[in-house]
C-alpha cells in the first residue's frame, strides 16, 4: 500500500450532524418538512424547494450499487486495485463510497447488488460510511 493516509473530511457547521452520526453508527440524511424530499449532501435547507424547515433522520443504511470504477494506480491509504463506487440509498440520495468485504473485481461488483453501510473509524473525529454486500436480502432491487 502506498505511504500515507487517505484524505479525510473536515466537517463544517452544516455537515457536522452527518459526521457525528457516522461516529455513533448512524447514517443521517435530511428531509424537507414541506415537500418531504430526502436529500444529500447535507445543507440546512431543501435543494428541491428552498424551504429552511428540514429534519435530520436516520437512514436505513441500505442501498444498491449504482456505478463505480476500479482504480489501478497508487493513492495514499489505498491498496490498488480498489473500487470507487456510488451507492443509491433506499431513501433516494446517492453518495460516493468504497465497497468492503468484497473482491474488487467487475465479476464481484455487480451493478444493483444490495449493499449495507459499514462504518469505518478513521480517527477519533472521523468515521467514514463504507458499504458492503448486504447480508440480509431485504434491500430493494
Amino acid at each position, binding site marked *: 500500500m502506498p505511504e500515507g493516509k487517505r*484524505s479525510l*473530511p473536515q466537517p463544517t457547521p452544516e*455537515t457536522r450532524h452527518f459526521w457525528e452520526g457516522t461516529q455513533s453508527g448512524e447514517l443521517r440524511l435530511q428531509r424537507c418538512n414541506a415537500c418531504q424530499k430526502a436529500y444529500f449532501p447535507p445543507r440546512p435547507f431543501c435543494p428541491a424547494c428552498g424551504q429552511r424547515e428540514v429534519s435530520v433522520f436516520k437512514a436505513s443504511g441500505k442501498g444498491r450499487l449504482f456505478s*463505480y470504477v*476500479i482504480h489501478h494506480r497508487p493513492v495514499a491509504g489505498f491498496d490498488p486495485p480498489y473500487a*470507487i463506487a456510488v451507492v443509491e440509498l433506499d431513501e433516494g440520495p446517492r453518495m460516493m463510497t468504497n465497497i468492503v468485504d468484497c473482491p474488487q473485481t467487475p465479476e464481484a461488483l455487480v451493478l444493483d447488488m444490495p449493499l449495507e453501510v459499514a462504518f469505518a473509524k478513521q480517527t477519533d473525529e472521523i468515521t467514514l460510511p463504507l458499504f458492503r454486500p448486504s447480508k440480509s436480502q431485504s434491500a430493494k432491487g
Partner: protein
Amino acid sequence: MKHNSIAIVGAAETTELGRIPDMSQIMLHADAALNAMKDAGLGPKDIDGVSTAGETPTSIAHYLGITPKWVDGTAVGGCSFMIHVRHAAAAIESGMAKTILITHGESGRSGVGRSRAPVAASSLPGQFEQPYGPMGPPTLFTIPVLRYMKTYGLTHEQLAMVAVVQREWAAKNPRATFRDPVTVDDVLNSRMIAYPFRLLQCCLVTDGGGALILTSADRAKDFPQKPVYLLGTGESVETPMVSQMEDFTSSRAFRIAGPTAFAEAGIKHADVDHLMIYDAFAHLPIYGLEDLGFCNKGEAAGFIWERNTAPGGKLPLNTNGGGLSYMHSGMYGMYALQESVRQMRGTAPAQVPGAKISVCHGVGGMFAASGTVIMTNERV
C-alpha cells in the same frame, strides 16, 4: 444574440504543442495571445476586453499590457472558453467592449508555473468524494459509465472504437501528439487505469495554449483573416460532484447548453457540417452526441462504430484528433474552438470540404459544466 452579429477575427494556438518545458503557464497564455493578435493584425492597445480561466483576467491583462474595460474570469473547467465566447458576444453586442481577447494556457505536462489548488477537505467534494480515493478526472469523470453500459448495452469494444476513430483523424494532423493508427484490440490491451477505462481511452496530458479575438461582425471585414461568425451559444452548470449528477447516462448541463445554442442559431442537426465534442475520455462523444440530439439515447456508440463520425463519414467529429490524440493540457475547450475556427476558415489539416456550420461543445469539471458555440463562415 443576434445571428452573425459577432465574429472571431483572431485565432491561434501556442507556437508549440506537447512538451514545452521552457514556458510557464502564464507565458503559454501570452504566446497564444501574441499569435492571435498577429493573426488579427492587432496589438495589446487594440484590445479592450479580456476573458480567461486558469489565470485571472488581472494577471493576463497586466502581463500582456492590456487596459481592459471589461473582464470575465468565468472558470468552470475546460468549457470555460466556450462560455467566454458566449459572454464576450453579449458584451460586444451591448457595447461594453469592442475587441475581446480570450486566452488559455496550461503547463499540464511540464507543470511550469502552474497554479492548481488541492481540493479543500472542508469543501463538499473534500468531505464526500475525496475520502474514497479518487485521483483526479480518470477516476471521477469515468464513474457514470458502468451505469450507462448497463442501461444501454454499450460494450467495451464500442467504447474503444471512439479512440480508434479519433486516432484516424489525428493521423491527418501534423500537430497531433499521437498519429499512429490503433485498433480496438490495441485500446483494449492498453494499461488499465480505472476500469472500465484503459490508457488509450483517457486523454493526453500535454502543454499548450490558445487564444481567440472577437469583435462585431460589422468590423470583421477590416481584418486580414476570413471572419468566422457566431450563430448561437449556450451554457449551464450542474454539480461539482460527479456522484450527485441527476442522471448517470446523460448530462443535464449538456442538455441545456446544446439545445440553447441550437435554438439561438435556428439550425437543425442536418445543417451541421462539422462537430467538436470535448473528449477528455472516450465516453464523452457518446454522451455529447445523444445530449445534443444528434443520436437517440443509447444509439451514439453504434453511430460511431458504423463510422459516421470517422473520416469520410456524414458527421465529421473531433477532426483534430481530440483530447485523446491531438493534445489535452487539462482545460481542452480552447483547442476544440480552435479546430472549429480552422474548419470554418478552410485551413484545417483534415479539412471538411465545403463545411459551413460547425458545432463546438465543451464540458467542464466532471460533467460539472458545459458550453456550446455554433459557428458559420457565411454571413446570412
